[in-house]
């Protein structure tokens, strides 16, 4: 975009026009720059807010409180491992749902669907992406848990990691599908034609040619999906079931707490009677861990995306 203006001195002077015009130009540029710079301010504010409050909390507690049988902030038991295990359980279940469905849908849309089907189906998938997470939370609680989880896997409670995980997975499908589809669609046709030229079938082309060529983008879509699933809050808050505390468990049929779930239940519990003054500010520490975790996932997936861009 730079350097498109003609470079002869005389014409440039003529084109510049009056001083007021130039002043306006500078003002507008400054305003735009300011709004772009604001994003950096926001990131710094996030990091400072989280780090500052988290350190303030850490200095007040006994570090032994970070290791217990479960996450019971009102009893001063802040077992981070409980939240970590819960988060990994939910994100893992979500990816078991979102990876096959999202990648399958992406491959169909990119490799097999006619342009007309694409035009019809993509908006519907985008509609799914627009559904608020609180709705999926209700769906997980009212439909997935009683109708799917209980009837197939058993279990007694009204809440479970499994139903919340499936709900989060459904939310993640459109994200995985759209990024993976972009990656497969971007594979040049010459590769497909070369494969067809030596007699490959559509299935072989899809699996052996397009998939490997797009693998960076596909991995990126999965990592981004994982990051989204890790940060998803409302489905967990509604359907995973632990308000307040939870025991550490690896059984997906149990209810329990995750990092995001812990933050939200601390937040809404703040106006009630608190068991401990240390309980509420622990959400800053959990928030910091969540931020670092998702940040790392996003950076890794960005790496993969850049690899795709370089190749083609």
């Amino acid at each position, binding site marked *: 975009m730079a350097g498109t203006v003609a470079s002869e001195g005389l014409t440039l002077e003529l084109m510049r026009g009056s001083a007021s015009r130039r002043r306006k130009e500078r003002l507008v540029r400054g305003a735009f720059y300011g709004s772009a710079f604001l994003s950096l301010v926001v*990131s710094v504010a996030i990091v400072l807010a989280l780090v500052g409050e988290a350190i303030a909390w850490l200095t007040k507690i006994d570090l032994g409180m970070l290791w217990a049988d479960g996450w019971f902030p009102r009893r001063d038991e802040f077992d981070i491992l409980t939240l970590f295990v819960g988060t990994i359980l939910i994100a893992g279940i979500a990816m078991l749902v979102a990876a096959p469905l999202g990648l399958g849908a992406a491959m169909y849309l990119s490799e097999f669907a006619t342009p007309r089907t694409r035009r019809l189906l993509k908006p519907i998938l985008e509609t799914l992406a627009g559904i*608020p997470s609180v709705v999926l939370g209700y769906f997980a609680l009212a439909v997935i848990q009683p109708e799917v989880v209980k009837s197939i896997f058993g279990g007694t409670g009204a809440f479970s990691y499994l139903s919340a995980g499936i709900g989060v997975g459904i939310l993640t499908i459109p994200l995985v599908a759209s990024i993976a589809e972009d990656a497969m669609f971007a594979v040049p046709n010459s590769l497909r034609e070369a494969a*067809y030229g030596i007699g490959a079938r*559509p299935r072989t082309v899809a699996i052996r040619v397009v998939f490997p060529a797009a693998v960076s983008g596909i991995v990126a879509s999965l990592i981004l999906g994982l990051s989204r699933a890790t940060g*998803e809050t409302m489905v967990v808050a509604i359907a995973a079931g632990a308000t307040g505390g939870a025991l550490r468990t690896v059984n997906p049929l149990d209810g329990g707490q995750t990092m995001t779930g812990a933050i939200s239940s601390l937040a809404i519990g703040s106006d009630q009677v608190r068991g401990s003054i240390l309980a509420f500010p622990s959400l*800053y520490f959990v928030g910091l861990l*969540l931020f670092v975790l*998702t940040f790392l996932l*996003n950076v890794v997936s960005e790496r993969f995306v850049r690899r795709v861009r370089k190749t083609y």
Partner: protein
Amino acid sequence: MASVVATDQVRAGVELALRGRKADVRGLLFRMLLVLTLLLSLLVLVVLLATTLVQAWPVLTERGLDFVTSNTSSLASRAGVRQGVLGSFILIAFVVAVALPLGIGAAVYLQEYARDTRLNRLLIANIRNLAGVPSVVYGILGLVVFVQALRPITGNAASGRSYIAGGLTLSVLVMPILILIVMEALRAVPKSVREAAYGVGATRWEVVRSHVLPYAAPGMFTGVILSLARAFGETAPLLLVGAVTGYLSTPGGRNLFEILQGQYTALPTQVFSWTRLPGEEWSANVAAAIVVLLVAILAVNLVAILLRNRYERKW
């Protein structure tokens, strides 16, 4: 696929020659499997909409508009979503007023003005990362900055948990996504349009205002609507910056600023708080509130998608 016709002809010809009369059963099965994954995803959407509608039906038919025009109540049969709907629309208006100009400005700078310097690359990478930060983390930011540090502005009476705090938090949350979408719309405007304008002596701002922005408008519009719809359905950050989850008295205030400094709730927050109440009646209320929420969001999404399909142009 740019050359669908050519590829299909090549494929069909070669296939026929190689395959002879044998049908490619496994290929067909694979294709069916892929269709199945897609249909399953769509089926989820259908089941979700259908069950919600069925659950909500008694409330919607018996109470009708009364449900939308009633305030919250501790009685399930009298509780309505008026305050939530109102609150959500005020929050969105706030986002439009704050995030829209800033987001478009930032996108124009990064796409039209910025040279490829280290700082600018850092800005873009940073915005990408901000777009991936979980929304609940923005809630914590809002809690620390808007609710606690800026309490005199956001309203002492509501201890900082006001419309202003909620609206600012949602604005900060939406901005990175908005910037990325607007940048993409600007990028789609071909260079030649800009060069023609520079050629007749326009300054950079004149080029942007009268050429780039109008051409990019349809794409920008779609992106803006989609990100506003996202803000409309966002719940987690509002829990942290104090959208009221229980009973809410009707807001008082002499002028607009005082109302904005008051307590608030939002439609998705109401949905969430009602899911925690026991009993069939509340469950039906939740479903009915979700129907109201989805009607608003899906209608807006549909408009955005139709607009894009209508005005999408290939250069």
